[in-house]
């Protein structure tokens, strides 16, 4: 399964080499041009039949993870988070260190030697060390370099009744949806942008949008879904099983109403279930794309993912199917009905 392959590929922000190569191999047979820009974005072009408009789909390739920042004298590695990683999810986990993916583990003090109140306190990043089996600092330095990436060692596999678990669904689900979309030719030129460094401040997307200069952009994201017991309803964000989430705003941006309306109409016409994201926390690449050049109309379609930014997140597979489908149907609607931004807008027309 393509999603499993993308989920298991490594690529913390700034070190997206493996995931970039994986995606490049996947799309090569379907696209007309592939370009990698100076900061590492992978931009693919699928030429349209008329090519009178440019449409951009964006998803970030990078994932949250850790980076090696130091060595203990006994050979254990100090790490720091890349992107938003809560240190509390790291205790007792397995990771891969460096490009050669050396196995490592993050241990903790044994319960036998703790004070009772220690267990009520969160473990701090400074106390979370990666053990790769090195005997001392010199030994560790032979195997690992400062700055080496550390990714979660999580297999992507089916879970329960129609769910899937794995790491980095944020935003490999979006990458997967773009790869599917690039297989279909439209009237307009379709650009697939697989962006870098979203998790450390939306750094790649604006750069990609500047080069593409699209008439319209859709960001395909993975977003929070926290429907576990005791969560206040307003914090649930999205609910797995209720379809892809259309986002009207987030911390970084307000969605283009015309595109949002078209997404809703498209979903309803095809009876594709959808929901609106109910929280406005977190930012997305749309925040950068929307403010690029003189402004680019953009919208976000998000995939509900439980437990994102942790070693293991969970998605509903029918949501995922509908997410990929909605993206495809939206592009079809642009062929059939034209770009929604042309309706009563002063933007340039075809």
């Amino acid at each position, binding site marked *: 399964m393509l999603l499993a392959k993308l989920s298991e590929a490594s690529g913390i922000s700034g070190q997206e080499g493996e995931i970039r190569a994986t995606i490049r191999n996947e799309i090569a047979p379907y696209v007309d041009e592939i370009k990698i820009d100076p900061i590492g974005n992978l931009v693919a072009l699928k030429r349209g039949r008329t090519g009178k408009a440019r449409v951009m789909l964006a998803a970030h390739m990078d994932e949250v993870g850790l980076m090696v920042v130091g060595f203990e004298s006994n050979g254990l590695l100090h790490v720091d988070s890349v992107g938003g990683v809560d240190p509390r999810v790291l205790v007792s986990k397995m990771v891969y260190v460096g490009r050669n993916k050396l*196995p490592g583990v993050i241990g903790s003090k044994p319960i036998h030697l703790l004070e009772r109140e220690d267990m009520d306190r969160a473990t701090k990043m400074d106390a979370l060390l990666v053990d790769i089996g090195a*005997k001392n600092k010199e030994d560790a330095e032979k195997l690992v370099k400062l700055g080496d990436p550390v990714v979660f060692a999580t297999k992507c596999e089916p879970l329960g009744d129609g769910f899937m678990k794995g790491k980095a669904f944020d935003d490999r689900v979006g990458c997967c949806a773009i790869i599917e979309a690039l297989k279909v030719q439209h009237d307009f030129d379709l650009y697939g942008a697989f962006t870098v460094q979203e998790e450390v401040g939306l750094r790649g997307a604006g750069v990609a949008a500047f080069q593409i200069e699209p008439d319209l952009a859709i960001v395909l994201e993975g977003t929070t879904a926290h429907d576990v017991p005791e969560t206040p309803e307003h914090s649930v964000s999205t609910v797995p099983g209720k379809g892809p989430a259309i986002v009207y705003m987030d911390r970084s941006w307000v969605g283009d109403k015309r595109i949002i309306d078209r997404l809703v109409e498209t979903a309803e016409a095809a009876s594709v279930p959808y929901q609106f994201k109910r929280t406005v926390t977190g930012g997305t690449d749309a925040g950068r794309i929307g403010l690029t050049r003189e402004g680019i109309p953009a919208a976000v379609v998000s995939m509900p993912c439980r437990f994102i930014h942790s070693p293991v997140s969970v998605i509903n597979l029918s949501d995922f199917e509908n997410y990929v489908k909605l993206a495809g149907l939206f592009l079809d609607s642009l062929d059939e009905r034209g770009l929604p931004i042309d309706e009563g807008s002063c933007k340039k027309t075809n």
Partner: protein
Amino acid sequence: MANTKKVCGPGAVGQGRHLMGAERGRVMDTKQAILRLADARGVTGYESPAGDVVTALFADIVDEVRRDSLGSVIMLKRGASPKPSAKIMVAAHVDEIGMIVSKIEDEGFLQVRMMGGVDRRILPSMEVTVHGRRDISGVIGAIPPHLQDPKDKDKSWKWEELVVDCGMSAERLRELVRVGDVVSFDRTGVELANDRISGKSMDDRAGVAVMYECAVELQKLKHDCDVYFVATVQEEVGYGGSITSTYGITPDIGIAIDVGHGDMPGLPEHHTLKLGGGPAISYGPHVHPHIFSKLKEIAEERGIAYQVEAGTSPRGTDAYAMQMTRSGVATGLISVPLRYMHTSVETLSVEDVKKSGQLLAFFASAVDSRFREGLTCF
């Protein structure tokens, strides 16, 4: 003995020989044996899958295998003499810490609580297996940073917040899972650098592997005493298996093999053992002084690097249970250095396991009736 089941007796060699290896008696390399044992499931009180792995592993190198009524696997390696010089019981526990289902939530998640000592801080993002009507995979979720209240970030999550997501509706969960079903950690052990390995349940499958190494060594060594290797159950909740199996065997000497805290930053040096520093020979009220001295003497004689672990508390291992059984048993304790005890990434050096097994084998072959008789001379 009542209620015991003979799994494989003398002459039944070949049973369970689906393990690899051509050399007679040597069925599996030490590292592979530890990993295979550690990956097997056996939450306290529900040890039978792990017990089956033990039985299969030892089948070809011991003379008798049986299970007692609590489930401990008792394996006898007979001595050369028709009148054995002593009965030595070696105990390593086969149970592991885990969890138990305490509630099925209407939203389709499971509440769990600990079985044995679990620091709940290891649970966020842990993958688990729920042993329901069938085995079901689950994930213990963590609230993403985006939805957290920043003032909670220094607190650990409570048990109530650490629910298991099986990707199923409450209705379906109720068909497959009941309150009281056990939950084990999903972890396949891995090899790290320098012949170190990491995984779940090294506490105390590493001890079981030490017994295995010892049994393999004893194929080559002459020993007059009968050696009973016991994979004990329910150690993590109070040494149940060790109490009952010692009663059944009535040994002259009892040696417990367990794990001791390995060195890591943040722990005082006097509380830890050096990983790769060799077996730790334990001393304290739970150990007979003659056995302590004999183990050290043999290690020195055979050039086996060792460490001494001095512990003042009698509790914590099967040695404590053996010591007080029937009219009393002279006990010893060998500890394998282990980092991150009671997590799912318990880490050890394979060499320490090998050396512990060798030390134990040399000890068993050195025990004669004089040594046994001397145990009451203080």
